[in-house]
């Protein structure tokens, strides 16, 4: 029993690490540049499809990860270009890119693909701890990378672009360019998570990305309840979400209720969350 619990805890932790990348991506798009981005859903699947193709082809893990990052960045840029250059509504842009990526993923990887015939560090259960260390390190690198970005001069401008675009223009900065950059970074992170998710499970499914945005948002809300600005809270939020879901699974409800529970959970959490005043965020920082 004890072994089982510790194993579940480890899975919660590592799955949380994977989804923390999504949470950070959602933070970048929805909180920093203040762009509600539905591309998250598509780029998670796209990253997974790229990973499946690379691994089945016999490519190394790093190549799968790098190509997923690039693929996600491209998807985010596309959304950004549709929004800024073709003046389309942000929700529609994300929806379009996600819809288009569905076909691309299907063509690339197929509907359901098992990777188990190939060897990869990430799903050999003997190496669970090595794989765990790898995932933790990756989440840590992403966290410190984004933290550095947000505290840098570029980060200040990204925040200005989100909260006061007129000011960014007055500074002579390209609002369009920074928005595209923000979206491509956010979706690169999400696609990386998708890539890790597929490699961790050893399986790609075309429907595996459904609900990614809800998971990301819920993790973000949980994280902001811990600390209302960019911080380690976002990682914890992603892990707590996985823990909540592990409990749900332990309750042995029929899996068909999963998405309903996810949806209900986010409603409950938003009600529980203290209303965040952006000023207190700035002070907390």
């Amino acid at each position, binding site marked *: 029993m004890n072994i089982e619990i510790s194993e579940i805890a480890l899975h919660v932790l590592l799955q949380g690490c994977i989804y923390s990348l999504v949470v950070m991506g959602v933070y970048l798009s929805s909180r920093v540049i203040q762009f509600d981005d539905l591309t998250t859903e598509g780029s998670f699947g796209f990253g997974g499809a790229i990973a499946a193709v690379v691994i089945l082809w016999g490519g190394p893990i790093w190549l799968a990860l790098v190509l997923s990052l690039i693929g996600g960045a491209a998807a985010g840029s596309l959304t950004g270009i549709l929004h800024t250059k073709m003046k389309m509504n942000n929700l529609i842009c994300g929806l379009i890119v996600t819809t288009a990526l569905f076909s691309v993923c299907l063509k690339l990887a197929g509907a359901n693909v098992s990777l188990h015939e190939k060897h990869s560090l990430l799903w050999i259960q003997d190496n669970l701890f090595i794989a765990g260390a790898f995932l933790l390190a990756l989440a840590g690198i992403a966290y410190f990378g984004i933290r550095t970005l947000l505290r840098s*001069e570029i980060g200040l401008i990204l*925040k200005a672009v989100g*909260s006061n675009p007129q000011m960014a223009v*007055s*500074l002579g900065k390209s609002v369009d360019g920074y928005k595209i950059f923000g979206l491509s970074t956010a979706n690169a992170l999400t696609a990386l998570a998708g890539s890790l998710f597929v490699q961790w499970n050893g399986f790609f499914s075309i429907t595996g990305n459904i609900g990614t945005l809800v998971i990301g948002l819920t993790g973000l809300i949980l994280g902001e309840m811990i600390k209302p600005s960019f911080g380690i809270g976002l990682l914890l939020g992603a892990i707590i979400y996985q823990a909540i879901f592990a409990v749900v699974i332990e309750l042995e409800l029929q899996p068909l209720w999963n998405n309903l529970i996810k949806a209900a959970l986010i409603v409950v959490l938003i009600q529980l969350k203290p209303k965040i005043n952006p*000023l207190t965020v700035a002070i907390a920082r």
Partner: protein
Amino acid sequence: MLKLKNISKTFNGIEVLKNLSCEVASDDFVMIMGPNGAGKSTLFDVISGKTIPDRGSLFIDGQDLSAVPERKRAKIVGRLFQNTYLGSCSILTIRENLALANLKERRASLTLGVKKFPEEVVEELLKPLHLDKLLNIPMGALSGGQRQIVSFIMATLNPPKILLLDEPTAALDPDSAVQLLSFAKDYSKKYRIPTLLITHDPVVAKHLGNRLWILKNGSIDREYGMEKSSMEPHEFFHPIIYEKLGG
């Protein structure tokens, strides 16, 4: 020096600016008055590049800027808005905002955002305004008057070639308004920056600048020259307001 030649702009069939021409010299402090819809803000939008005119040309210091977009005029035009939230980023602190304003001159990098913070501004400008203790407070938590004066400092951190003040005191209390207007007047004089100020306050219009334009139906309807603009804002503004209030 600013020169506009036959500027016209039409929005949805309505001609907002009609053949507007004017010249502003570097010593000029121009007051602009006019009813709503006269084209005052559109005139500022044209000068700052937010709006590109349908016809006409615009020169600043002899440089033709007619087709240069707003973003590329950032170093040339400093602008302050009526909305005190527009000049700065509310969620960032004063320190971060000033660091941002300092980024006007160069490309942003991955170095720490507040590293190249203009420290000299604290002693020279913020201390006399009692804002030096509030450096780490987000802009959104300041009063409208404080926010507007920091916005002014930000817009003029690197002296622009022309300064546009779009009803900057409309949302401020009399004390803050006087403070901001004195600040603006001193700055404009010290650095010899041609300044244009839109106002609905006849007292300000009469006493603050050396020229007064009345805008009507998209062109300068009348112009008055005020040879001596010897009065300081606190001299004309304060007593009148408080007398009216009986204070």
